[in-house]
């Protein structure tokens, strides 16, 4: 009680015009006098954001309370949202997202951390060459790499099955078997995004002050102990960032699944966005597509809140 009063009082006693602590430089250096130019600089973006973001966003929220199938629009309240819970395909698409979340993201982050850790060791030769090569998948166009994987994963005589054949492993029906299709998607995304995350983590590793390694060594910590007790805690914010962006990426997956499997077989690799695309632009059920979209908004917001919570906590 007293404490909160005290802090509030301290806040009000701030000298007028003095930047609020925490907000960097608090905007205008020449506040007031230079209102106009600031407005002119921001005007084009502001107009575009209102017309092509705020307005359609409001439309989509409004439309999600209407049934728009067959060109007619009738108010149905929360029906579209209740429909989400009963729709097996919504559940299946969320299941795909969850599978990627639980299996692909940890595998990818672990690989990225491992690679980044090795490529941050001073004694490794050709470090920059290895970094460059493992980063290369990140510069491929999403659709193009999906196409390449699709061709490589052809069941009869595809490059991947031929390579497996060399090792005596039988041909795998990558894209037509429910579970293998999921493996195919997971393998493809992992190939594309591991190097990208590796570079982020590498930057995090390089920000760790060398004194910490030195201190760990003096304390007699071995390689593993140093890794777990020095490197990982220091990497926390970077790791959370990569995990959260990968999570949102999993929730918004479209290109890869659309090209690789089209969501099949038997909707085994259907993603929420792919389902939204089908509902909206193949069945023209706009109201329901909007409800699916808002489900994604809510899920993304929940993830963002969790991220914020975890980031705020000090280890």
């Amino acid at each position, binding site marked *: 009680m007293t404490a909160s009063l005290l802090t509030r009082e301290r806040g009000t006693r701030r000298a007028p015009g003095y930047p609020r602590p925490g907000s960097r430089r608090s905007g205008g250096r*020449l506040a*007031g006098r230079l*209102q*106009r*130019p*600031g*407005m002119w*600089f*921001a005007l*084009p*973006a*502001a107009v*575009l*954001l209102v017309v*092509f*973001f705020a*307005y*359609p*966003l409001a439309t*989509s929220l409004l*439309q999600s309370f209407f049934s728009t199938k067959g060109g007619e629009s009738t108010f149905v309240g929360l029906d579209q949202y209740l429909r989400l819970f009963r729709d097996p395909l919504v559940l299946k698409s969320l299941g795909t997202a969850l599978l990627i979340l639980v299996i692909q993201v940890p595998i990818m982050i672990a690989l990225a951390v491992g*690679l980044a850790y*090795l*490529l941050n*060791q001073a*004694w490794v030769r050709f470090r920059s060459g*290895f970094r460059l*090569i*493992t980063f290369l998948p990140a*510069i*491929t*166009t*999403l*659709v*193009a*790499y999906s196409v*390449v994987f699709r061709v*490589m994963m*052809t069941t009869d*005589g595809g*490059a991947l099955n*031929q390579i497996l054949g060399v090792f005596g492993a039988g041909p795998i029906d990558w894209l037509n078997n429910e579970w293998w299709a999921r493996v195919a998607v997971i393998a493809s995304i992992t*190939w594309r995004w591991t190097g*990208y995350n590796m*570079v*982020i983590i590498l930057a995090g590793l390089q920000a760790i002050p060398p004194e910490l390694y030195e201190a760990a060594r003096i304390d007699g910590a071995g390689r593993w102990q140093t890794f777990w007790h020095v490197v990982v805690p220091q990497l926390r914010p*970077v790791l959370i960032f*990569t995990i959260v962006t990968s999570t949102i990426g999993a929730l*918004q997956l*479209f*290109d890869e699944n*659309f*090209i690789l499997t089209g969501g099949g077989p038997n909707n085994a690799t259907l993603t929420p*966005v792919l389902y939204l*695309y089908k509902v909206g*632009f193949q069945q023209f059920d*706009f109201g329901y597509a*909007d409800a699916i*979209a808002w489900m994604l*908004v809510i899920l993304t917001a929940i993830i963002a809140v969790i991220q914020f919570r975890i980031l705020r906590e000090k280890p």
Partner: protein
Amino acid sequence: MTTELVVTGQARRRGIPSRARREPLLRRIVLRSPVYLVLLVASVLALLPFAWMVIASTHTTSDLFVSPLPLLPGGEFWQNLGRLQESVGFGQVMLNSILVAVLYTVFSSIISVMCGYGLANYRFRGRGVLMGVVLVTMMIPMQVLLVPLFQMMASAGWIDSFQALIIPFLANAFGIFLMRQGFLDFPATLIEAARIDGASELRTFYRIVLPVARPQIAALIIYTFISQWNSFIWPLLMLNSEDKYTIPVALNTMIGLSRVDYSGLMLGSLLATLPLFLLFLVFQKQFVAGLLGGAVKG
């Protein structure tokens, strides 16, 4: 204890990892070869699809599915290119992609840089609201806008046009945010010096701010170009006529054909990747900064 510290200190200064000095050669080799093995395997896995893309685009389709696989590039490159041109008009498709990406990058970058500068350096009415909108836009998945934007484009008669690909996304929230963050760190003394010298706001922006902020702007330009080059779902919805297709849409149509031209597809994928690859070779540093965006500062 003390001596050890001194020794490691010296070793570090000479660029020799201290641990290495203490370990005998044989032990070092035994310890280190698994690391190189791991890195080698990772490199092979990373490069394999690229290698296959190049090899496959220079062979006939039937060559790609026989055993053993061709391990070297063949001589069918020009035939494949000719067929690609014949079936989907790939020259036109490439031009479309370049045109749309360049136009989008130019205008979107100008808008992002201006807005970011305005938000970072001035206090004006509505600034807080605008900043809020930018943050919210960044958080909200773009897919929410698919249906309403589609309807907007349909009623404006913009379907199957390039402006439908470019204009709705010109105000790129992430780009604006990136620029604002950059300009917050901009040396304020430079701007104040220009003002004292009597330069107008626009002149200050043009003559002082832009040249100094060049590396950040380069990263923004590359980020913007990549995002437009990769864009798939929106062009897929907007474009109907083949002569307006961008590369991702054209590749998608090729998959849908009754007889899939696999070597053509691989060549198309190669050509789709090439511009980003060249951009990467020339602007490695800015490319990585642009790709990672706000992930890592500096």
